[in-house]
């Protein structure tokens, strides 16, 4: 092992010790200490307090907002035989949308058979029977079907919809919502709700008052837990 050439010896200079605590007048510190015991303990106590407060606040908050992220598998309820529903007028059916809460879980749904001469939207397995929600798309009052004029009318603020549920007057912002329907052995089953834009293009269910045409579909995002049914 070759000896390293010896460096020329510099006059030894004393490294100045940092005067952190002295400059800041922090009492009770050893010389050169950057984190005094007092500062360390203060930080520890604050951290412990934050952890303790978070330990009950965060679960409580999660508990309160949890239902927003809760998905529900689609419920299909029997609403009658396929022969119960004509193609030229609506039959009101009372169905339970939310079970277990009595009267307020029920709603009226207007139903008819699909009529290819009127219903121009593409047919698929979910719209052989048309099920119109009675929830007005202004602020959610219940609409009523008036057979004399073949219109849906809302008693609250004068919303009017035509036979297909498309808005023809008043403040509503989109056509009436619909429900998926399917046929199982000559029985009609009613599934989850979906929303439409004015071209009756399907969207995942939105609340009333939320337009779905143009920029509306982006301003009112869908729920991550309630998607369109595939197909």
């Amino acid at each position, binding site marked *: 092992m070759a000896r390293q050439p010896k460096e020329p010896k510099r006059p030894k200079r004393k490294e100045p010790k940092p005067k952190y605590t002295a400059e800041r007048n922090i009492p009770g510190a050893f010389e050169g200490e950057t984190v005094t015991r007092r500062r360390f303990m203060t930080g520890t106590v604050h951290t412990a307090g934050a952890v303790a407060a978070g330990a009950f606040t965060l679960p409580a908050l999660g508990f309160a907002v949890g239902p927003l992220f809760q998905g529900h598998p689609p419920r299909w309820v029997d609403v009658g035989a396929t022969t119960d529903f004509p193609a030229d007028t609506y039959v009101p059916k009372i169905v339970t949308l939310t079970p277990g809460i009595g009267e307020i879980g029920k709603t009226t749904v207007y139903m008819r058979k699909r009529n290819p001469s009127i219903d121009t939207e593409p047919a698929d397995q979910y719209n052989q029977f048309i099920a119109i929600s009675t929830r007005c798309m202004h602020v959610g009052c219940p609409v009523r079907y008036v057979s004399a004029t073949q219109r849906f009318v809302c008693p609250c603020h004068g919303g009017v919809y035509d036979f297909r549920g498309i808005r023809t007057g008043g403040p509503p912002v989109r056509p009436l919502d619909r429900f998926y329907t399917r046929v199982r052995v000559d029985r009609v089953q009613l599934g989850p709700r979906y929303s439409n834009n004015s071209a009756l293009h399907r969207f995942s269910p939105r*609340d009333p008052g939320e337009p779905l045409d143009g920029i509306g579909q982006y301003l009112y995002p869908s729920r991550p837990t309630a998607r369109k049914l595939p197909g």
Partner: protein
Amino acid sequence: MRLPKLPAPPTPRILQPRPARPGEGNGKRPADPLEAAREAGVSAADWIDERTSLSGGVRWLLFRKVPRGTNWFYTLGSATMFAFLSQAVTGVFLAMYYDPSPTHAYESVRYITNTAFLGAFVRGMHKWGSSVMIVLIFLHMGRTFYFGAYKYPRELNWVIGVVLVVLTLMMGLTGYLLPLDQRSYWATIVAVNLNGTGPLVGPYLADFLRGGPDFGATTLSRFYSIHMLLIPGAIAALIGAHLYLVAKLGTTAPPWLKAEPDPELRKAEA
């Protein structure tokens, strides 16, 4: 033979004659029961004050100097606070009978109204008192605005007051659902859907209020909890802050009073 005399057994303390205390005896008793009661009250207050020093704070809060021209309009804030206290007290007792479940809420409200002793009266106080509180809080707000009492250094108190107005309106909204009749139900549907029309956050806010995408099993209890715990707690805390600032900053003189410089000061300036 004489027996030595034994010492007498010690008398129980309770049987020993008590020496007269200073101020008692010799005709120095409190003259009448009224005075005795007053002295008892004074000594009880002294007992508490010796241990808490509360009297200074009470004096600071209650015995303030108020400007000349202070008039009845200045009582609207206290009136609003008493309306809130009335709502709090009647609400606590209504909660003893009310059942926040969707299937029993209406029946329990009907029981309060028709069967419970004084139920219709207490519920009526709560129902009409809510309107009274809203009217009073807006009159108080108007008084503050027209008297210019929101100006420096009282801006923060104005901000707290505006938050209190919003919280009071939220009390009205959440309380409206609780009887769960047709009017409550549809009013709440409409109100929540109005919340939903706010762009981007609206749908989530509506879902938060309902506890899900539809009016469901927990919506009523959610409104109930917000109505009787969350918002009243916030209102009580903010009223405390509001009152602290009122006592700290003092009240304003009515705007029609001209400022009159102290003659002593004027003399000194000249």
